[in-house]
């Protein structure tokens, strides 16, 4: 089962992960990562923009790669877009597999790619002014781990 979504409003990860897990009888393990908007001291609002014609197709392709490469039974990949507040989930990736190694590695792989190879641009509002966020050097290094 491949369940890929872009959402414009807040979501509760557990509401998605329960049915996702139940959709794969016989699984050995499910690994899930949920990223939240960090509540840095002066961040009032975070906004994620994207480019519709590329974003969802590239997430679908990323999930297909992960499913094939890590022998998954299914992958859930949900990403918020638009304005959001500190403490709200921004991304949720879940992988179901027969064995734990595949599930954990697939989540790791998907998150690295979503961070620095998917078509999202993030800016945050501090003291009433918007600031664009560039990927950190760490994010590029994380991504490079998968390119052997």
């Amino acid at each position: 089962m491949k369940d890929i979504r872009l959402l414009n409003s807040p979501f509760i990860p557990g509401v998605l992960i329960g049915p996702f897990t139940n959709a794969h009888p016989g699984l050995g393990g499910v690994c899930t990562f949920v990223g939240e908007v960090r509540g840095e001291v002066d961040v009032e609002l975070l906004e994620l923009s994207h480019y519709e014609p590329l974003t969802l197709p590239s997430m679908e392709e990323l999930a297909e790669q992960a499913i094939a490469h890590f022998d998954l039974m299914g992958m859930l990949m949900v990403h918020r877009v638009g304005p959001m507040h500190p403490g709200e989930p921004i991304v949720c990736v879940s992988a179901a597999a027969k064995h734990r190694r595949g599930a954990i590695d697939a989540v790791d792989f998907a998150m690295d790619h979503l961070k620095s190879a998917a078509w999202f641009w993030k800016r945050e509002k501090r003291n009433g002014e918007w600031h664009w966020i560039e990927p950190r050097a760490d994010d590029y290094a994380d991504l490079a781990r998968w390119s052997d």
Partner: protein
Amino acid sequence: MTVRIVFLGPLRDLAGEDSREVPAPLGWAGLLDAVGPEVAEQLNEQRVNVACAGKVLGDKTALNAQDGDEVALLPPVSGG
């Protein structure tokens, strides 16, 4: 007979608009002319990608947009 240029992320601020219509067809030189010197400077950087009609170009300088195509200017991303 137009091509729509879409400015994404920080390029939107630099361009001062979300998108712009220009006459078709549109090649690389025409694109650099159309977007103004500040955006053109960014476009010349390797880390800025260009998509045409929903496909990211392997070689953006080979841009050849036809009537009705959307050309997206894609600065470095920051998701997750």
